[in-house]
């Protein structure tokens, strides 16, 4: 009997001692990268930038920016580690940027390491930078640290603003999917600080087009269900702003003797917050009509734009594939650009605030 326990304890002791020299990652002795940015230099070279905060004392931190050029991300990391006072790790990465030129040349290669590394979460935000990612990252001056500053900027725009739901997982889903195309928010530092300027659309992994963020609410409401939107209406006679827009959208696909019919059914309801022409309550039905007409016009233009570019960020093909058993990829691809897409919009104004 004692022999058994002696062997047990030897085993356990040996095991612990043998794994004792595993590389340790003590929080004070490593640098956690919170933001990464990649710029296009030439066909074979990228410039990689990483920001890592150092905590000085309570509520105080200092962001260090490291940057260098190389042919791939981890070769770059080697060079950045040569500049950093402690080793850089990816575990706290909040957001990653690619500049527009890089995105126009394809993102798949650069994206790979984000998906392959088990320490990087799927909630990581991705963004495109119109000019240079390095300069954008350098322009942030915030006591939060660049990582939280940018991820908070994204988060509230997703929850309450015009930015559709986006993260690494959704982007890579769109990228791999054969029936939809991905999109990403595009930032710019024209104003001296980073701001979300537009939404960039991709064909496979290359950036092909973008729409300004002011008009992105139409895309968002066609793309997903949403419950805290904003809608502005400008007509010749009056201007109005609707808040708390609650939208649900449904795709109806019908197969009528071989020709596919797609109807997008959007139901919206919201509260008026601004109205420039006095008494609103009397005019609500005609006001709702105006809203519907305006939404329909803009949505039609947007869908036309997608069809002309032959991209499908709304996943129309996905909806056709999933509801028609006779779906044929080749036939759909040939028809997509001229596919008639009907819109059924129902706008309901529920409240007019504290005034009539």
């Amino acid at each position: 009997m004692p022999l058994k326990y002696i062997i047990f304890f030897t085993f356990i002791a040996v095991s612990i001692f043998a794994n004792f020299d595993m590389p340790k990652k003590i929080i004070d002795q490593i640098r956690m990268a919170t933001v990464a940015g990649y710029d296009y230099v030439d066909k074979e070279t990228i410039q990689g930038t990483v920001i890592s905060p150092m905590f000085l004392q309570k509520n105080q931190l200092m962001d260090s920016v490291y940057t260098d050029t190389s042919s791939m991300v981890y070769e770059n990391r080697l060079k950045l580690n040569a500049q950093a006072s402690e080793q850089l790790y990816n575990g706290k990465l909040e957001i990653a940027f690619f500049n527009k030129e890089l995105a126009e040349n394809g993102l798949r290669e650069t994206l790979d390491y984000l998906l392959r590394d088990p320490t990087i979460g799927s909630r990581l935000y991705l963004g495109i930078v119109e000019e240079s990612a390095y300069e954008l990252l350098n322009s942030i001056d915030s006591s939060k640290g660049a990582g939280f500053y940018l991820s908070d900027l994204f988060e509230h725009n997703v929850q309450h603003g015009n930015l559709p739901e986006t993260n690494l997982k959704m982007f890579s889903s769109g990228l791999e999917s054969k029936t939809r195309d991905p999109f990403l928010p595009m930032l710019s530092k024209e104003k001296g600080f980073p701001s979300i300027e537009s939404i960039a659309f991709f064909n496979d992994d290359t950036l092909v087009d973008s729409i300004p963020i002011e008009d992105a609410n139409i895309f968002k409401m066609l793309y997903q269900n949403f419950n805290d939107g904003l809608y502005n209406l400008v007509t010749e006679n009056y201007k109005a702003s609707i808040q708390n827009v609650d939208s649900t959208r449904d795709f109806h696909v019908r197969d009528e003797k071989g020709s596919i019919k797609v109807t997008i059914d959007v139901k919206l309801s919201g509260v008026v917050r601004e109205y420039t022409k006095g008494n609103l309550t009397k005019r609500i039905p005609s006001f709702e009509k105006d809203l519907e007409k305006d939404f329909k016009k803009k949505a039609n233009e947007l869908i036309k734009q997608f069809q002309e570019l032959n991209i499908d960020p709304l996943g129309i093909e996905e909806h056709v594939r999933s509801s028609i058993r006779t779906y044929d990829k080749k036939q759909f691809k040939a028809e997509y650009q001229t596919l008639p897409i009907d819109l059924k919009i129902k706008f309901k104004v529920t409240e007019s605030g504290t005034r009539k």
Partner: protein
Amino acid sequence: MVKVKNQVPALMVFFLISAAQLGVGVLGFQSVINKYAGHDAWISVIVAGLGFNIIIWIMYRILQNNDGAEIVSIHKFTYGKWLGGILSFIFSMYLILTSVVVLRTYIEIIQVWMFPYVKVWALLLLLIPLIYYIISGEFRIIVGVCFFGVLYPFFLIFTLFYPLKYSNLTNILPILDHSFTEILQSSSLAIFSFMGVSTLLVFYPFIRESRKSQKFAHIGNIYTTFLYVFICLVSYIYYNQSELQYILWATLGLWKIIEMPFLARFEYVGIATLFFSILPNVALYLWASTRSLHNLFGISHKKIAVFLLVIVYIACIITGGREFISFINNMTGKIGGILLFGYIPILFLINLIRRKVKRNAS
């Protein structure tokens, strides 16, 4: 015969069967089984689960026809001393192989997801005494481990509601878009995740009122099927099929989206909790193998346990690498499929004929 004091209640069969089935398969079966049936592969899981209910039924017929004997004496009775002995030996080799596959795959996951620098030989030294403690003692210890192996990881099911927010139902539509043959082909790939039931042939004599235990075995199998189908459905609406091609452990991938204020990476908790479901798996297979060899050769149970653990230890150290591990996983799945769906029905028939012949002769 096994003493009554060493036997366990019939209800425990539920935990034994579920714990034997839920193993490493659950972490990555989604991107394996969709090879033929694509987004309909979740139906294949149901088909495989129903198939296993039939196999459990056949197993119970074999076991009850032979008055609660276990596999070694059934083999001996059916085929005679030599052929029966060889078949029992092959069966115990298969059980060892399965335990090695489960343990090695789990260690691979630790290497990839948690500690890339961990020394496999040293980590195993930590696990081997634990496994020895479980398999060398009484059967009740195994049952206890199996009980907690089903209970502890249960809370993980709630984490699967998290990814639903980022899911598209369109990914699994239209339902039944693949032919019945394709679905069957896919369910043959799902066998690996269910094949723990083969240990039933060994632990059957340890069940008190074993005749009553059949319904618990079926319920155990239905419970695992339900879990697998649920995990599979969540994964298939979360990932689209072209995305799954590149993903090795889809279940762990689902956890990557979970982020809590106090916990950045949920996988660490998940993988650690799953140890509670891996341990009974390995222990039950090894115990079953030890028990069969003990019945076959009459050498003491503890000596065989030590010998088998040395084999497992060496096998886990010399194997490694994604390519090889996925190869032995597929191989074991195929062998398990042949054993359970090919050999068990044959054994049932031959055994039946053999008993008829014997009865007529006497």
